[in-house]
């Protein structure tokens, strides 16, 4: 076997994060880089997202996923940036040795910097408290989307969707347009998980009912799905058996959560945040392993591809700095109250940063505030805050070394 190939930067993943990072690095003079992509074509999940809404902030156009990807793929090709498709990374070490396998063979790279851009996977049926046999006809939304949009396979005719996240909503519309009867979308939370725009354009337009505070508890049918049992849930999200109803159907689409894909990160000993499912990073998006950086859905699941590209471009700037010399230490811890995770989890002194987080519940006029030692670093009021829309809060450079807390509050839930 040959010696590892030396590279300044190896990018794991040729989806929106990986492509944007590569272009930004190239523009800033980093030429010794390679993108490793496991699919036969780059573009990541965008390839199957034939709906529009991509590029609204970045290009001021409503593009489909493949069109958005092309805006990055074309310059990547034009600039001659090294991109290997059909190549799966099978190993990553804390010394930044990357092992990749393709039909052409096994290659190892010794990278000075590694960018994790592997995206995320879907939560599967097995993880849910959903009982019964295991009939055919149960698909996660992304798999159904790939079948319908890429493979020309129709997944079913009488459809129940569990989960009102954007993918579930998009598939409700997609399947309806293809002649299926979408019987309803069931959401365990008391509010929709996806964007209001998608609730309108994917459900209301087609008179597809949305049942909040409901879940699917049982599957019926031994060979192919015949029905599901749905139940209302209480405020602890526990099913109320007396509300059980049997819904005849032949397909169940699951849109019940995305999980950052961090198997390679674990291999390298990267510390993960149990709330995001992604790596713990500092404000330079560097993980706990020096020289390994992360951006995009692998770090925390995003709503908008435009945000992913921006995050990856920011990361590229940090990698350029890193290649020139070590980045400042980031000892200041960040926590959140009234919101879920906050990224980054560690900050340094003396450099401005942007904190990203999701509000815990939909609220009007939500005040979001970053506080350090009782001092407000930044405060914004968000006219309409929802867990479906990530918030980005800029904070100035810090002189103090105390921890920073992000608080979200409104009239109902005042800050303490």
């Amino acid at each position: 076997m040959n010696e590892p190939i030396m590279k300044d930067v190896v990018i794991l993943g040729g989806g929106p994060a990986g492509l944007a990072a590569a272009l930004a690095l190239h523009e800033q003079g980093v030429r010794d880089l390679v993108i490793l992509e496991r699919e036969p074509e780059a573009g990541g999940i965008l390839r199957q997202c034939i709906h529009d809404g991509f590029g609204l902030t970045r290009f001021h156009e409503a593009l489909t996923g493949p069109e958005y990807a092309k805006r990055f793929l074309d310059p990547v090709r034009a600039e001659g940036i090294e991109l290997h498709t059909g190549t799966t990374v099978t190993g990553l070490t804390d010394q930044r040795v990357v092992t990749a396998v393709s039909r052409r063979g096994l290659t190892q790279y010794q990278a000075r910097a590694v960018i994790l851009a592997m995206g995320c996977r879907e939560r599967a049926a097995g993880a849910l408290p959903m009982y019964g046999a295991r009939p055919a006809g149960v698909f996660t939304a992304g798999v159904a989307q790939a079948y319908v949009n890429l493979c020309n396979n129709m997944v079913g005719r009488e459809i129940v969707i569990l989960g009102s996240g954007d993918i579930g909503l998009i598939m409700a519309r997609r399947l309806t347009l293809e002649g299926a009867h979408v019987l309803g979308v069931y959401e365990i939370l008391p509010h929709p998980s996806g964007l209001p725009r998608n609730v309108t354009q994917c459900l209301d337009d087609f008179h597809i009912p949305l049942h909040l505070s409901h879940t699917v508890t049982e599957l019926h049918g031994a060979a192919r799905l015949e029905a599901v049992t749905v139940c209302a849930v209480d405020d602890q999200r526990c099913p109320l058996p007396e509300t059980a109803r049997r819904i005849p159907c032949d397909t169940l689409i699951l849109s019940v959560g995305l999980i950052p894909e961090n198997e390679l990160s674990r291999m390298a000993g990267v510390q993960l945040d149990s709330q995001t499912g992604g790596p713990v990073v500092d404000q330079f998006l560097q993980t706990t392993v020096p020289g390994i950086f992360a951006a995009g859905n692998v770090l925390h699941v995003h709503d908008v591809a435009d945000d992913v590209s921006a995050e990856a471009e920011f990361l590229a700037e940090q990698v350029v700095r890193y290649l020139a010399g070590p980045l400042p230490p980031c000892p200041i811890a960040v926590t959140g109250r009234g919101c879920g995770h906050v990224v980054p989890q560690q900050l340094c002194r003396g450099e401005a940063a942007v904190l990203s987080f999701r509000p815990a519940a939909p609220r009007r006029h939500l005040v979001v505030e970053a506080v350090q030692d009782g001092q407000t670093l930044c405060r914004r009021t968000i006219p309409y805050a929802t867990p479906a829309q990530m918030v980005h809060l800029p904070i100035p450079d810090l002189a103090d070394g105390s921890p920073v807390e992000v608080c979200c509050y409104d009239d109902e839930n005042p800050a303490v």
Partner: protein
Amino acid sequence: MDRPLDITIIGAGVIGCAVARELSRYHLRVAVAEAHPDLFGGTSARNSGVIHAGFHNAPGSLMARLCVEGNRLFSDLTAHLDVPMRRTGKLVVGFDEEDRAHLLSMLERGRRNGVPGLKLMGRDELRKLAPAVAGEFALYSASTGIVDPFQWTWALAENAAQNGVRFLFSSPLTAAVRQDGLWALTVGSHTLYSRWVINCAGLFSDKVAALLGLTGYEIYPCRGEYFLLDERLSSLLPLPAYPVPNYRTGGLGIHLTPTLEGNILIGPSTEYIDGPTDWRTTAPTQDMLLREGRRIFPSLSRSDCIRAFAGVRPKLTGPDRGGYDDFVICRREDVSPRVIHLIGIESPGLTASVPIAREVIRLLGLTESLVERADFDPIRQRPMSLRHLGPAAQARLIADNPDHGEIVCRCRTITRADVAAALSGPLPARTLTGLKYRCGAMMGRCQGGYCQTRLVALMEELAGIPREQLLYGPAGSRLFAGKVRDV
């Protein structure tokens, strides 16, 4: 078929496949009729994969003798048939003096059954062996092991097929009549004429027995639910660990069993049910499994689970009696001429599969002259897989065949070459789950999220199975409702 068959085996579960493999040693025309569209349709695909030592079974019983024998043979057999296995040992864990008394009687029973390597272990030794397992003392069984039940069943079947046995799928036995000294068997859309029939029909062995003239047996289906934990937790359980079993319910207790891939199985539970193929999981039992699992494994949580499933035991004892009866392996020439019946083959059936098959042959040999074939090949081999190799060997493998470099299932590092191998050979996959269990794709963390679309495409490309007809598993389990566009 022109000439009648010598032997027709009903059922291609682990027992039917073991019987087929052992029969293929002789100059006999043998066929196996399986109701399902592929292997893995019944109990053989829904169990813990444990190679039992034999200390649970009553001394003097067939179960005890054949289990101990099967355990002894397992290393050689798996080596010949190229099936991975590991002698992990096993712990039966106790907490109080009553448990200790049970463990001692188990130890004594094991010794009477000729089980090697049994000893009682104290707290310190237990902690050293399995630090995450709670318990005051344990019975340690050195000879217990684990195997992949899918690989074992498939290996037996392939070796049988390689040695001339024919397999018919989607061929349930619906009628059997005596005709001119032969059995005329209606299996699916075929009629087979066969001198002998071996009833290996598992959950339906009572009904098949009745079709073949033997009444008076009843199978009491007894479901066992499981759930499977993420392989991330694998280091916590290096070997199977069980709490002291309860004889009245006849189950082995709620136990924790590692798989060769590093997943941990919790289960099985024990519940008598009505239908023999009622493989549903249920909320109360899944909750119970979690609670019971925590007795041994205090840090367990629901979010650690990647899949839940159920198997059904074909028991000969009903709910009022409980416990279990010995294997029924018998001939009844008075009512069921030239048939060997295997009824009630529950645990330790998997472990005892080849000795059970040899017992069938012994019974056959009482009235049949069996001539060994000189060209019987006991060796069955699988092609090399990328995931078993280190980087240098992987590089060479890919250079030799680029299909080894095309990864199809990311979670388990299953390649196009592995999938192609499962779609070729004497018993290729016919359904999506048939492919899954042969090559291991879809069995990892993402449960097919990444690889499913690729596997479907490869089944079409390499096996010529049109997508619109592709079954997930059993008959009637089509994956798709047609095309999006007719192109």
